[in-house]
Structure formats: C-alpha cells, structure tokens
C-alpha cells in the first residue's frame, strides 16, 4: 500500500517535472529577446531538476542510489546558476543591452548587426 502511494507520488512529481521542461521550452520560443528567454531556461534548470530528481529519489527508496541522486541534484543546482551567470554576463559584456524591455532582438533583414556590436 505504502509502495503504491510512493509510486503515485513519484509519478506525479516526474510528470510535473516533464511539464516544467515543456513549459520552459514553450517560454524559450515565445519570449521576445535574449534576456527574457534566459528566464524560461531557468524554469527548466531549477524547478524541473528538483521535481524530476525528487521523483527519482522516491523510486530509488532508501538506498545508496538515493543519496547519489540527491548529490547529483545538488551539483546541478549549484552549477546551473553559475553557467547561466556566465552566459548572461558574457552577453552583457559583449554589449547586448538588458534594458530593451519587450523589444525583439532578432536581426532585421535590412539592419544586420555591425561588426563587434553584438546586437
């Protein structure tokens, strides 16, 4: 009985995690420019990671595998933001303006980015 309940709970968490990945993907397509798209990626990065790993830990039960999964989750949660920071900071340093609001940053056909402008 308790196994069944744990199975149900872990499946709910795994499905929710998958949903977060999907919504992150949709957000990456819908949001207008680079800096806003990062936010959608961070939804996949954190919430989906937590949900999927907790779901897998419930499947693993009390074992060494559960501890390892927990450690992998911690490593992902520690390194994910660092990678995001590297990406965002590189964009900032190369001159992409973060205060454009909702404007799209796709290059226009008659207004291609100048050399080194990074926009």
């Amino acid at each position, binding site marked *: 009985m308790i196994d069944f309940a744990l199975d149900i709970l872990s499946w709910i968490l795994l499905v929710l995690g998958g949903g*977060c990945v999907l*919504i992150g993907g*949709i*957000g990456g397509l*819908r*949001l207008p420019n680079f*800096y*806003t798209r*990062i*936010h*959608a990626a*961070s*939804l996949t*990065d*954190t*919430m989906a990671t*937590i949900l999927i790993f907790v779901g897998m830990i419930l499947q693993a039960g009390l074992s*060494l595998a559960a*501890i*390892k999964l927990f*450690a992998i989750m911690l490593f992902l*949660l*520690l390194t*994910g*933001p*660092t990678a*995001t*920071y590297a990406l*965002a*900071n590189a964009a*900032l340093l190369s001159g992409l303006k*973060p*205060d*454009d*609001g*909702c404007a799209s940053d796709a290059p226009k056909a008659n207004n291609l980015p100048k050399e080194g402008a990074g926009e």
Partner: protein
Amino acid sequence: MNLTLVRHTFQRGETRLSSVLLLLLILAISWLLWSGLYKPLVMSLGVLSCLLSIYLAHRMGFFRNNTNLLRLMPRLPGYWLWLLREIIISSLDVTKLILKPSMPISPTVVVLEAEAKTDMGQVILGNSITLSPGTVTLDLYKGKVLIHCLTSESAKELQKGEANRRVAALEPR
C-alpha cells in the same frame, strides 16, 4: 577588464595545510562512496583525480579564501528550505506568465547592494537570485548585483531585500 588586478585581489592570504587535508579527505570519502569498486586500477585513478582536483582548487586560490566555509554549513539547510519555497512560488508565477496568451511581461533591470560582505556570501546571493525563475544575475562587482527581472513585480519583491538579509545572516560573524 584588468585580469591581473582581479587575480591579485582574489589570491591574497596564505595557503593553509589544514584546509588542503580537509578537502582531500572529503574528496577521498566521496570517491569511495561513489565508485564502490575497490580494484587497484580504479583506486589509483581515484587518487589521481583527487590530487588533480586539489591542484585545480589550489590554482583557483580556494585554500586562501575559504576561512568560513565550514562555519557556514550548519545554517545552509534552513536557507535551502526557504529558497525552495521561493523557487516554487516564482516558478508558478513564471509558468502563468509564459502560458497566458497575452504574456504580460515587463522586463526590468535593478541594482541591489549586497548586504553580505564576503565573496562567498555575495556568490551565494547571486546564485540564489539566478536559481529562482524570473530573476537572473547579470553582473556582480564590488558588492553591487545587477539583476534582470521578468516582471516589475518580481523586481519590487527583490528590492524589499529578504533574500539579501537572509544571505547576510548566513555569514559567520
């Protein structure tokens, strides 16, 4: 950016042997826990990778700068629980924003003055902000954190400074 200057300020202080040995111990234990194979070849590979990690950490100036890493540990789980709650709340917000057909986003850039004084506290603050969906740290320089927020509401929430206070409370006094 002046790389030599950055290197200089990050690598001050003496390398302490005790923290080198402590890291070596932690790495060795986690290797043994992780591999679970006790053949000579695997063990020697483990020793090699532990020593390589120690060398890389030394090159990064890790041992000259980690005076308060261990004293910070006991307060981390409580902070993680609070952060988890924040992550769940802001995830729901961002999910709603993305799925709404009108997508009512109002991207805002704010500067936050970090209350945490040590490098480590400021890194924890920056990474926590990035970790919660809807806010991303763009730059961290001399205690000033430049943050991109998906909505002006989340920017206001950040400027109330609860995250800032909690990270500052993590630091050992």
